[in-house]
């Protein structure tokens, strides 16, 4: 049975361009999602943290509502979320198929996940430095941007590396709605055509990308930690 797999002929003249297309699609989806979702997540996470009880802009009711919304979306399996949000995707992107159509739900999901990670990092900030900043006459916004966020930069960077892996995961599911990418490539040319070699090639490429990003994040966080 296993031998059967190896007898499958791999037509490299078709596979190679498809592979490069898949890699570029994955990188496109992942980087755009990380950029947009990471930014929105940072903002949402700061809002979540600063509206907590006894925080900078304490507003428990607002916080509860926001937290409820985030918690509402986060547990939905992404592949179901993709189809659940279809009407909104059509309204915003104009179509529910293709790479761009996949990015929209990915950004939303990424925003929610990032916001939680940002909030968790900010919770660990020592209140003493916030008080010190206030005692010098700093405003709440200045305290947030110039004291609190720089202080949590190392854990934030590691948090973003974690998010990156989650986005890679999501991008693989984008294939189901015609988003392309390495996940789609692995299913189409590997799984469906009984050619595990192709699947393993995509796995290897994904591993290389993830390792590269993780190591870079570790390096950056370590560098920042050592100085602080």
């Amino acid at each position, binding site marked *: 049975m296993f031998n059967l797999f190896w007898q499958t002929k791999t037509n490299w003249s078709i596979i190679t361009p498809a592979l490069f297309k898949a890699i570029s699609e994955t990188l496109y989806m992942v980087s755009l999602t990380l950029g947009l979702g990471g930014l929105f997540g940072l903002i949402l996470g700061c809002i979540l943290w600063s509206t907590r009880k006894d925080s900078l802009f304490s507003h428990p009711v607002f916080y509860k509502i926001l937290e409820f919304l985030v918690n509402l979306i986060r547990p939905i399996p992404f592949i179901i979320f993709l189809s659940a949000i279809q009407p909104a995707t059509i309204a915003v992107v104009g179509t529910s198929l293709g790479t761009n159509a996949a990015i929209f739900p990915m950004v939303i999901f990424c925003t929610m996940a990032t916001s939680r990670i940002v909030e968790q990092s900010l919770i660990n900030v020592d209140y*003493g430095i916030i008080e010190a900043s206030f005692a010098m006459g700093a405003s709440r916004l200045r305290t947030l941007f110039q004291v609190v966020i720089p202080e949590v930069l190392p854990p934030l960077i590691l948090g973003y590396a974690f998010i990156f892996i989650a986005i890679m995961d999501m991008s693989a599911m984008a294939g189901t709605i015609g988003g392309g990418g390495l996940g789609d490539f692995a299913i189409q040319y590997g799984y469906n055509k009984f050619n595990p070699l192709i699947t393993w090639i995509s796995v290897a490429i994904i591993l290389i990308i993830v390792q590269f990003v993780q190591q870079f994040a570790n390096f950056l966080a370590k560098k920042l930690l050592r100085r602080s």
Partner: protein
Amino acid sequence: MKKPKNNIVEFKNVSKEFTSKKNRRLAVKDVTLEIGQGEIFGIVGRSGAGKSTLIRLINGLEKADCGQVLVAGQNIVNLNYNGLKQIRKNIGFVFQHFNLFNSKTVYRNIEYPLKIADKSSKISSDDRKSRVLQLLDYVGLKEYANCHPNSLSGGQKQRVGIARALATNPQVLLADEATSALDPETTVEIMKLLKKINREFGITIILITHTISIVRLICQRVAIMSGGEIVEIDTYKNIFFNPKSQAGKSLVSTFRILEGTGAVRV
């Protein structure tokens, strides 16, 4: 020594209560107190006596529920943010755990209050630089400008904390258990530095502590706090040799026991 004529900080029947779902706690009870310009004033009391809350009322980190808190003649209780910002520029704050920004260098830590004050007073970046270097030199940390606080010793950190508090040329310096986290020798060094600052710049220093040995080093007048109230105000000598309040007697006898000159052995 008598209290100087001009008051820099004044409390008039000030109370502050903390409420949570479970309980209410009166942290500061009807305090009336006058602190003169140029004094080194000590506030002594056990943990939870309300000392920290009391000095946080001076720069508006806590808001009084009733009464007046006057700083340089101005009631600060109902000030908005801009008003408080001006007041805070005039009040340095030194913390027990230093509260330095670990993500910034020593230089940037001291520059931070100057940057905040910048908008209103338009200090040029050159002036800012020379001010920071001058402060670093004053506290003896010139060669540490580009270090991050985590690489400094406790005493050095507190020197940075003091330099940062002095950056905007305040009239008042508040020290909240500034030496509690330090060893005895470093404590004496920091106290000497505070005394020097008081003498050379005429800055009023209000320091709170739970040990009477600290006030003995530099304070002229001392208030004893207990249960949110000021139970005794006098010169250091009178309190040390003849405490009238129960809390005062207790603090002095504890001090004697720790020094080994007390009648009781623990």
